[in-house]
């Protein structure tokens, strides 16, 4: 084995994995400030947070503005309203504390890693979530993460929305979203940003290779999208994303860490939802095409022009929900297909600190599906599976003993929700394949099953 391979392996284990795991852990959408603003209990918008009900989706599409609070008003002499501001800002706090235990401790280069990791707090989030002005609302999250030890901007979605009543009592809700994570603005929980698992361990093994729309650009891009929701059933959205890195001043240069988008990346979404009685069914498509200048590592003097890597992501999603007074049941699933054309990476200098692909073109497919049941919104369980497969590439997956990205397994979770804003979960993730293989996936004898993870989480929002 050459030294590059050895280094790439080390890199993948100690840099990429935690990075991927971190990316795969979506932040929370479930904020008591919405309840305070509307005067409605969480159950109007959520089955159990963060999963949205039909009304929750409509509330989000309408820009988070529905309220019942006393307003500070400003009116001109012509009776034109120029200010309508809530007496109190819609703030909330979220705290997560967790415990993670691997089936077999992660190997360490120098000594024994301690198994059984406590994260207290795993995250503390501060939210501004609610109305800013008539037709304008925001979901804005600042998060302290114990792993980074710092506070950073998390999911953000600022909206303008309005509603028109069409002939025949049909409604048209339309609006704009300015956000920092493709799919964070989406109103179904099938898409990546607010999809299951809603919380995962920061040090768990994550889900291996992922497509770009599956969280790669969370909080490092800015997008403006326009959407329309006809009759609360047909939803269409189009938008553009551009790199907007945190911690660097623009213009972005080759010294910027992490890839930089070439130009703007188009995003699109189409979905149809049908409601009858207590049931809802949805089917949809979403996707984006990202052109990226990859980051080869420090000191390469890369130019942010010329060839870029192209990732074309197309995904389907389906959702069914039954929201009863006693029993709540939902099934959610998505399949994301990515076609990669790696014009830039394939020509990377041999000393680049990222894996250099052997193929110009690769593909990657992720399927996730899960079902959730709750009894009286108090006790519930979720079970689901995940599977990522893709083309074999001896360069890109050089760190894997089998040069494939394949990762698959099962995830099960039991939840206890004594109050609608407090949740206690026990989650178990079992891998049948990890980074290409079931056995000896890393070339030093580790089995996929060694990564099986027990994760215990307390999640409070207030």
């Amino acid at each position, binding site marked *: 084995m050459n030294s590059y391979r050895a280094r790439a392996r080390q890199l993948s284990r100690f840099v990429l994995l935690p990075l991927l795991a971190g990316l795969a852990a979506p932040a929370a959408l479930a904020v008591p400030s919405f309840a305070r603003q*509307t*005067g*409605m*209990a969480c*159950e*109007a918008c959520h089955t159990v947070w963060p999963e949205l009900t*039909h*009304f929750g989706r*409509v*509330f989000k599409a*309408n820009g988070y503005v*529905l309220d*019942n*609070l*006393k307003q500070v008003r400003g009116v001109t002499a012509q*009776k034109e309203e120029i200010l309508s501001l809530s007496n109190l800002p819609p703030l909330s706090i979220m705290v997560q504390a967790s415990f993670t235990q691997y089936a077999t401790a992660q190997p360490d280069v120098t000594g024994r890693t301690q198994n059984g990791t406590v994260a207290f707090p795993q995250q503390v989030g501060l939210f501004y979530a609610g109305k800013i002005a008539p037709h304008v609302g925001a979901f804005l999250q600042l998060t302290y993460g114990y792993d980074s030890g710092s506070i950073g901007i998390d999911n953000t979605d600022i909206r303008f929305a309005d*509603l028109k*009543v069409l002939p025949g*009592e049909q*409604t048209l809700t339309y609006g704009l979203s300015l956000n920092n994570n493709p799919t964070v603005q989406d109103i179904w929980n099938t898409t990546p940003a607010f999809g299951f698992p809603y919380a995962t361990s920061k040090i768990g093994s994550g889900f291996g290779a992922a497509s770009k729309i599956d969280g790669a650009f969370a909080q490092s891009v800015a997008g403006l999208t326009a959407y329309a929701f006809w009759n*609360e059933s047909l939803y269409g959205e189009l938008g553009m994303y551009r790199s907007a890195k945190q911690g660097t001043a623009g213009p972005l240069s080759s010294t910027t860490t992490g890839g930089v988008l070439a130009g703007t990346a188009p995003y699109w979404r189409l979905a149809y939802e049908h*409601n009858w*009685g*207590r049931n809802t069914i949805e089917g949809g498509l979403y996707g984006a095409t990202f052109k990226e200048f990859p980051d080869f590592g420090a000191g390469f003097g890369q130019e942010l022009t010329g060839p870029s890597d192209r990732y074309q992501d197309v995904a389907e999603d389906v959702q069914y929900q039954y929201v009863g*007074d006693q029993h709540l049941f939902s099934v959610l699933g998505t399949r994301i297909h990515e076609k990669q054309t790696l014009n830039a990476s394939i020509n990377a200098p041999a000393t680049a600190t990222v894996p250099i692909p052997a193929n110009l073109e690769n593909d990657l497919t992720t399927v996730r599906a899960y079902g959730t049941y709750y009894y009286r919104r108090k006790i519930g369980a979720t079970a689901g599976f995940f599977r990522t497969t893709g083309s074999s590439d001896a360069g890109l997956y050089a760190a894997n003993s089998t040069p494939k990205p394949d990762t698959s397994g099962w995830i099960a979770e039991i939840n206890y929700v004594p109050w609608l804003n407090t949740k206690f979960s026990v989650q178990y993730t079992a891998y049948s394949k990890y980074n290409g293989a079931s056995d000896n996936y890393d070339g030093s004898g580790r089995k996929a099953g060694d990564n099986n993870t027990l994760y215990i989480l307390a999640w409070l929002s207030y």
Partner: protein
Amino acid sequence: MRQLVLAVCSLLCALGVGATRADDVDAFTKEHAARIAVGTCGICHGPAGVSKQPKYPLLAGQNANYLAAQLKAFRSQTRGDADAIGYMWGMSATLEDGTIDALSQYYAGQAAGTGRAGDSALVARGREIYQKGIEDVGVPSCATCHGPDAHGLADFPRLAGQHAQYVLKQLGSFQNNMRNVAVMHGVAQGLKVDEMRAVAAYLEAQP
């Protein structure tokens, strides 16, 4: 029996079941209310009070005084079953009397829904109960108070076309007093769940 019910009924009317009046409102309040009705209430109840989801009652064509009384009951937190608490207590908390009157008139002035046909055997059983009551368990005829066509009588609410799921839940809430109204508690006391289901299906099917 019928006489008794009518006597109770007129007594209640006199005592103030119909005491809340949706008073006339000025043009400014009217416009303000229409905006709230479409932009806020409409998200659940439909812009003209014809909701599509059965959890949210139809308000179109409903008696204005009844609507005003309900909104005040939500606001003072006296109408309290689970959905009333979870949804309407918050929504009504800051409504002023004038806005309540204007909203009530807005909905009363909208064309009522047209009803949706249901299982015919169930509807037939429901019609029987609605028109005649169930004598041996003391359930009176609903028509006495809600009108032969269920369009409401005086300030007794309109029930025709209402979502069956909502009606079924209200009857349950009257029975267990989570929605605490003496008259309807008395009426619903003797009803079994399948009888409630039948009368709800009948009501949903009425234009």
